[in-house]
């Protein structure tokens, strides 16, 4: 069992309430780049409905967003932009790397892409697929929610 810092020895209700609030209204930032962005939009649309998790409001401004779903391939030109948008998000923030290209460079192992977005930003959840269907993305998001609720991810 991982050692927990002294502050967490007693799970206060405030702590739990904070985690509950964070997971129940996590606003994603629009960082749709390529094909995965379309699947992300489909996840937010009527059929797969992210709104039931309080997440259909994709905030355009990173200052108002909690979650950055990097959906698509990150090219060399885009990497500094990605880092800047991530830095502009206030804490607490999480990153989901959606799709094969964001997680590892995908099928494009070449000069043009950053081979995995975790070279640029710290990633919490990797969602595999090319593109991952809305079910996979939702599973990734809900896993993130579970991890935050349980305290496994504590930032």
């Amino acid at each position, binding site marked *: 069992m991982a050692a927990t810092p002294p502050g967490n020895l007693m799970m206060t209700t405030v702590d739990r309430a904070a985690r509950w609030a964070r997971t129940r209204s996590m606003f994603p930032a*629009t960082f749709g780049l390529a094909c995965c962005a379309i699947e992300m939009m489909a996840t937010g649309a*009527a059929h797969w409905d992210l709104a039931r998790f309080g997440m259909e409001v994709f905030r*355009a401004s990173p200052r108002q967003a909690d979650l950055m779903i990097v959906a698509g391939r990150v*090219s060399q*030109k885009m990497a500094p932009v990605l880092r800047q948008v991530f830095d502009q998000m206030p804490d607490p923030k999480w990153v989901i790397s959606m799709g094969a290209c964001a997680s590892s460079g995908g*099928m*494009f192992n070449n*000069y043009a892409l950053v081979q995995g977005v975790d070279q640029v930003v710290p990633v919490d959840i990797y969602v595999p697929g090319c593109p991952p269907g809305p079910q996979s993305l939702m599973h990734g998001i809900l896993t993130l929610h579970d991890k935050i609720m349980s305290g496994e991810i504590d930032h």
Partner: protein
Amino acid sequence: MGDEKTTEEIDVWVAGTEAPQFSPTDEGSQEISRDESDYRLREQLGSVVDDDYEFDDEFGEDDERMILNMGPQHPSTHGVLRLQIELEGELIRRTKPIIGYLHTGMEKTAEQLTFAQGPTNVTRMDYLAPFHNELAFSLAVERLLDIEVPPRAAVIRVLMTELNRVSSHLVALATNGMDIGALSIMTYGFREREFILDFFEKTTGLRMNHNYIRPGGVAADLPPGWKDDVGGLLRYLPPKLDDYDDMLQANPIWESRTRGVGVITADEAIAYGITGPALRATGVGWDLRKAFPYSGIEDYEFDVPVGTHGDTYDRYRVRVDEIHQSLRIVEQAMDAMPKGDFRIGDRKITPPPRARIDESMEALIHHFKLFTEGFKVPRGETYVAVESPRGELGCYLISNGEARPYRMHTRAPSFNNLQALPIAMADSMMADTIATIASMDPVMGDVDR
């Protein structure tokens, strides 16, 4: 006390009369001293009104203009498009699109992959119309190989590409509406698209980026019961499209946001190499399916919708009409589906069915060679173009006699269409930019490859 204050005349100054007598008061230090000599300042303060006054020195041109950077991370630029806009107030004077934020090196990757793996790479370029990318590539390879696909494969290709055109235009409609503010269209467009994607998933295994149309035919046959699925789509979609027309077509807000916005004339469009709905909206009825037919599409009856003004409204209207025409083609393809092979029988190109590998040594060897080395394509170069939902999607392919392309270049319609953005946006309002970009429907995967 009362005598020290002088009463003042009315404070509205009418041009042509004498200068008013402003005398200072000692009451109320908030009052601005009235003997300000600068006429301009007095005019700004409202103490003087003069409509035929002319300033001696005009404000310099540069003082008014501002450079605004839009993107690459922006909700409405349809992907990672960056625009540097020089604004004069609310009017746009100059625009410079900056692209390359999604450059994936696909043309370099294509030189490393075999011809059978090519469609996996190419399909991710224009990710809203993946079948069209695969079709252009496969047609180019088949032309170099000098083979013809069986009739069933050709009709399946037409069926899938036309359904893909419908799904791509639905996304265009959805994002177009969302950017302008009609948020409900977004949910409706994606809802309709889900049914089409269900059919794609049933047939190809994937919702997007299918790698289904391969050199030699298609990857797998249509699933059992496909006629019911496609028939269901054909019954379900037209009433929904009528709903959209009710919502948008004569909507005064929609019309005022789209009519006369982002106008491109036919001459400009032809000079800039624009193709697709953006060109047809200007009045030029150029469609590659009619001019240079491919895959047997000349056997189907369909019209090519054409607009008149080349503005955003016409581009929207052309897309909706194209959806109707594509559904016509899908119906004809469904009725005319021949029986037969879904891929060419040449064992040097098409891998054998999996069951045969257990039975025949030759099949095993063929399978091995095809999946490790790949089939060799004779030397040659060719250019094949198909009509994708965005315009002319072409594949320029050079083979050196090996199993991998020597050079594969894709002529991307969105890449060329983006050149028209500065013209379409010139001297228009900032708010119209969004409508214009959305109506040009660029897909950045296509632009940057």
